[in-house]
């Protein structure tokens, strides 16, 4: 029935805690062997619940979860053989680092020499070979993080779950750890399911990202697709920066639609997720695709007024009033010849029709 390549399969999974509302609504998801899949979403979107169901700490209210084509709803967590890294690392404070790492090997009844070898290997993998005799409390946040990763991997699980593992680290360390985890994933070939609410983290590390909102996967795509072609307004809003323009579809031709904005401006947009003529739509446009005072005419040209400009080094962020939207953002690359962007000046903005997506209306 199922594709043998698929390691994890959620089939019509629902979850409710109180019997009144569904936290996870009808989830269907396949995760391939060796894949790095990130569940991304705001808090309360159901992503952590999905992870807990997969780990076995929460039972599914309805539906079935398969691991290697075996239904695991009734398999207790300790028999699932899934490694897990927790948000606060959950390193056992009364054990040394080495004892922490040996724990999963001990409970599996592995002999002492083999345990020792594996612990050493795991420690050198995360570049902490000298730290075996320390207690977790004696390590820095980043070091604890690595030990937690090493512990989740030391018993060679095929699947590792990570629940916002970098949430407690500062920005610089977080970025460094992102690459380290990514490299470990590549070197070992394990399947990773990663939960985060940080979109940069998701885009940096993942093969595919599942964007969760309101208990539903809004879009499941590789990072670039997610950014370039969001399937709906939520994803467009949630991933990266985004300009919103509300209007009504007046004409549809060859995958392009003509939209009349509420102030009367007419735009052409890529038709992604919108009904027919007469329907409301929200156009999504990335700020970096906007040209300020373009040299040549573009498909969409609108007059605007500069409200504010912020110097950010490599680019200048210009907030404008365009088509009645005072929060319209344009990112202007910082070239030597940049002209002064003075608030109050009027300017033309233009962009290609394929760069703006007509999506479901935001109410």
């Amino acid at each position, binding site marked *: 029935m199922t594709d043998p390549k698929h390691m994890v399969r959620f089939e019509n999974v629902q979850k409710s805690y109180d019997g009144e509302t569904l936290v996870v609504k009808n989830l269907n998801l396949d995760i391939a062997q060796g894949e790095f899949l990130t569940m991304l979403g705001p808090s309360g979107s159901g992503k952590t619940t999905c992870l807990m169901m997969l*780990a076995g*700490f929460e039972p599914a209210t309805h539906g079935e979860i398969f691991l290697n084509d075996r239904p695991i709803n009734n398999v*207790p*967590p*300790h028999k699932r053989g899934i490694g*897990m890294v927790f948000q606060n690392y959950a390193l056992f404070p*009364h054990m040394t680092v080495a004892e922490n790492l040996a724990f999963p090997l001990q409970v599996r009844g592995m002999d002492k020499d083999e345990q020792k070898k594996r612990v050493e290997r795991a420690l050198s993998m995360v570049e902490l070979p000298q730290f075996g005799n320390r207690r977790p409390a004696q390590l820095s946040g980043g070091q604890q993080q690595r030990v937690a990763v090493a512990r989740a991997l030391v018993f060679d699980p095929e699947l590792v*779950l990570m629940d916002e593992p970098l949430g407690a680290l500062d920005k610089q360390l977080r970025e460094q750890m992102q690459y380290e985890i990514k490299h470990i994933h590549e070197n070992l070939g394990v399947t990773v399911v990663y939960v985060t609410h940080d979109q940069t983290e998701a885009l940096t590390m993942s093969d595919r990202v599942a964007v969760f909102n309101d208990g539903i996967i809004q879009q499941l795509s590789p990072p670039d697709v997610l950014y370039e072609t969001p399937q709906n307004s939520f994803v467009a809003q949630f991933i990266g920066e985004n300009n919103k323009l509300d209007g009504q579809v007046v004409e549809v031709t060859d995958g392009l639609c003509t939209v009349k904005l509420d102030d009367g401006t007419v735009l052409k947009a890529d038709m992604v997720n919108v009904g027919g003529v007469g329907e409301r739509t929200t156009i999504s446009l990335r700020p970096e695709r906007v040209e300020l005072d373009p040299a040549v005419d573009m498909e969409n040209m609108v007059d605007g007024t500069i409200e504010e400009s912020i110097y950010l080094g490599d680019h200048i962020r210009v907030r404008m009033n365009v088509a009645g939207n005072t929060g319209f953002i344009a990112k202007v690359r910082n070239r030597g010849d940049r002209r002064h962007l003075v608030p109050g000046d009027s300017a033309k903005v233009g962009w290609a029709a394929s760069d703006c997506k007509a999506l479901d209306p935001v109410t």
Partner: protein
Amino acid sequence: MSDTIQSGPVLAADGTPLKRSLQRALRRQKMRALLLIAPLLAFILITFILPIGDMLFRSVENEIVSETIPETVDRLADWNPDVSALPDENVFNAFYVDMFLAQEKKEHTRLGTRLNYELTGVSSLFRKTGRRVTRFDTDIYAKQFIALDPAWKDPQTWSALFDVSSNRRALPFTTRSWDRWGNYLRGEGKNPGEEDIEDFLFSALHEDLTRLESTDGVDPLIAAATQAVGGFETVSVRDQFLDIDKDWGRQDVWRIIQVYSPPFTTGYFLNSVDLQLGVDGIKTRSEDQRIYIVLFGRTMFMSLMITFSCLLLGYPVAFLLSNLPLRTSNMLMILVLLPFWTSLLVRTSAWKVLLQQQGVINDVLVWLRIVDDANRLILINNQTGTIIAMTHILLPFMILPLYSVMKTIPPSYVRAAKSLGATDWTAFWRVYFPQSVPGIGAGAILVFILSIGYYITPELVGGTTGVFISNRIAYHISSSLNWGLAAALGSILLILVLALYWVYDKIVGIDNVKLG
């Protein structure tokens, strides 16, 4: 300049050593802190620490002997029982004076009671002697002195004689006796110059005069009496005492008085551990008198049992409470705390109703035919009763620290253990339990120390086999009035608790104890 800075202490900007500057800066804070706690400190000091200190001091204090019979104690010091079987006449003379004064002040029974702790029968001996010491045949001395010179009959004569220091020096024993007599009379609101001269004073005078070598500088009255005293008819005070009770001829009675003469004694402490400082040194008490070691042992054993059963019952409850949602756990916590809001006496009395042989538990068991009507369980007035009732009463003290520690153990630890392949039991035993140990430590210490000194509950449900050392202490404080022994038992209990605390600190580490 820079050399001095490097070699000497670090200096503040104004040149004073930094340490002193810092101390001065902190002094104000310290004074403030001290002022804030001063009222409580004074209160505790006056109402708690000082009285307890005084009480504990009674465990070694033994001034009653040397205060009640000072002359006897003084003269008895020279008596060597190996040389003479009984103390000589001198001691009996002194004892006569002491006993006469003691019975006047009604102190002889107290002394008898005190010495009775060490030698049974002394109490009644003193009581009997007190009644008859006023009727000794020593009146022959009075008669002979008065016959010699009627002025001896007049108390004014005595007052005048003992105001003169040369007379006082010549008659030391009589002087001391006269002074004590005078002090006593004045204490009673009487004038020694107006009260009849008692026989014991003439007896003392007789003894002094027979010893007096030179009459230089003494009153002619005394000089005349010294001349005559050689021809006086005498009476043996020792025989008088032996007449009252032949026990005064027993060596051990006098030995006990001698042994317990010093103002401080280890007797109470030895008593507390079933030893006795008797006439031939320290000995263990006879089998039927040994109770305290057994009682201490039982107190420890039962406290341990109570602590253990509290842990057994409290751990799952605390575990459940700490893992429930806050709303539910708060509600259940009220049930745990409910006993705190009920009087201890009421709870203990309730257990009396439940546990007695015609009580609720037995009735139910009989009704269920688990127990035969003729063989109802004896659940009260024994150790079982004490352990059941005290476990119930002290359970919250176990649950609360356990709960507060368990509340801080994140559920992710157990989850992590399970995800790493540990079964529920392994995850609990290897990961959860070690982290709850500080709570166990705190709860166990609390319950153990509370139960080791518990009094009311064992008193009410313990019968004879289920009572604690504290009940014995209370008995000595309020019934037998042997405060010294009570103080010694209390001190031992205190030392025991402190020692256990120290051992506990060594093994578990007091830093690991968390109360919340």
